[in-house]
């Protein structure tokens, strides 16, 4: 028997055994052991051949369950809530809740500098954030650092308005809401490219 014929023979035997094993739960273990001894790798593939269409675990998510957790916002605006915010409210909130970490004008730190243009080396909203919607999404889910998740949607909209205006991306009269926010073009967006490494020998 040539090597090729042997492999084909063993492979068909394996498939045959599995088919036989799946239909006879009582002898499944013994049959699988025989198959695995022959060709251990096949067992990885064959394993799921015995699977039912569904394992019927978990429960179908209710609309309320989804609503409670679905807080993400996409660049096209999907996920932005009702309400709106403005620069003046944002400025007041920023001074009260954000300035302690990010500095009086968003430039002083001690933590991440938020305000600054192309002339600034630090990565700021003005020179490094490609999408305006990310600002709303991130502030709502993670800020203020010591009181995460404590801001109302209106407050988040207002802080977004303040930070965009402080970075001279909008003027201080622009009202920010689900309609206006996704339309704002960020200065840094034009620099972003998807991973251009292709794998293989090239250092990139």
């Amino acid at each position: 028997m040539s090597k090729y014929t042997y492999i084909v023979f063993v492979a068909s035997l394996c498939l045959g055994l599995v088919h036989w094993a799946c239909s006879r739960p009582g002898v499944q273990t013994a049959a699988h052991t025989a198959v695995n001894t022959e060709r251990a790798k096949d067992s990885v593939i064959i394993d799921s051949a015995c699977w039912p269409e569904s394992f019927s675990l978990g429960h179908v998510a209710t609309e309320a369950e989804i609503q409670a957790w679905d807080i993400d916002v996409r660049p096209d605006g999907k996920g932005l809530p009702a309400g709106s915010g403005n620069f003046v409210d944002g400025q007041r909130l920023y001074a009260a809740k954000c300035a302690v970490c990010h500095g009086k004008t968003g430039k002083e730190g001690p933590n991440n500098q938020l305000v600054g243009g192309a002339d600034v080396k630090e990565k700021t909203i003005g020179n490094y954030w490609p999408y305006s919607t990310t600002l709303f999404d991130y502030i709502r889910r993670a800020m203020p650092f010591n009181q995460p998740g404590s801001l109302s949607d209106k407050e988040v909209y207002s802080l977004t308005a303040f930070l965009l205006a402080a970075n001279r991306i909008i003027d201080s009269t622009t009202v920010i809401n689900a309609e206006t926010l996704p339309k704002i073009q960020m200065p840094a967006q034009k620099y972003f490219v998807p991973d251009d490494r292709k794998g293989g020998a090239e250092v990139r």
Partner: protein
Amino acid sequence: MDDKSSDKSLFSQKIKRRSLLGGAATAAVVFVQTAFGKTIQKAIPESVFKPEDDPTKQLGPFPSELGGRSAFEKPVRKPSDISSRSPLQDFYGTITPSDLHFERHHAGIPTIDPGKHKLLIHGMVEKPLVFTVADLKRFPSLSRIAFLECSGNFRTGKEAMTPQEICGLTSQSEWTGVKLSTLFREVGIKPGATWFLAEGSDAAVMTRSVPVKKGWDDAIIAYAQNGEALRPEQGYPIRLFLPGWEGNANVKWLRRIELSDQPYMTREETSRYTETIRDGKIRMFSFDMDARSIITFPSYPQHIEKGWLEIRGIAWSGRGKVLYVEVSTDAGKSWHRATLQEPILDKAHTAFRYLWQWKGESTEILSRVTDETGYTQPTLKQLIDARGTDMGGYHLNPVTAWVIKSDGSVVFKPEKLR
């Protein structure tokens, strides 16, 4: 001695023992007999334990519920405000002890009751489902040994740097869980769904967008690490594990997966884990960790002595298996194949060794890995040539050189980033 007084002293002994165990480190536990002839354990604090004592003349501790390290071994992570680094120079083999696995989190470690934790999968699916942790454990399971590395895993700047300080944000575990593809099969992925959002339930509710293809390929919802439940700092009770991909995308404390036809452009994948490359461009979604190696012995601050020694280290690639590792003991003039320790696993730390006779000369020792895709670990200069002088700080995997001085001291050879 009457029974009552002995009874009393037994109680006071117990209290003492507890305060000892809770306070200073305990070096050993001995057994003493009470007046009733009952054997009880008594702790000996480390301060009175003399290592020169003959261990054959002293009864040792009996079996206990939980083991610990020898009092003589003290490997520790090196924490900062945002991460802690694995002590690569203290490891043997390739599995990172779970309590020494590196950490990186964005708003601390949440305390999560596994009985209450749930995973929601929704969005572009036929049937949105909620799974408890117990549900996830009932699915067909999978174990896989693989490394996990933060894409910001490179530090340089001074000679006095250990492997831990240079690249201690990589660790390796055997991860156990359910394949994400198994869960995809349950919910039914709609045609057109190309990305999914993974969201954690930490205080940052951290999110990353991941291509659906990775979910079908080899992503795991892991609930165990090295034979036990995940450590809290590694995502207890469940985390996303993406073999070979940058650490940040392996979302911990996972609570939600939403299928979408586009990425979400979250903060971490836009303003954080992205890197400047040539012509002012910023590279994003650079998931794969390119091949890398480092010699962990000899390294700073060790000293070597003349004679034969085994140069040891680890090599890995996020794109496949390690093909070979080369070692140079003459500052890169000539290279020699190192011996690889089996098993050589896909996307896993692989141990290498090279026998070397040091005759007292001052020199530099280096290692470089080539993976099965044909990629050879670059020098820092090659990386700068490829990415430009404004090269960002992520995905840096340069060849690391150790300087051997004629007195046997070893220091890191820092190179200028720009």
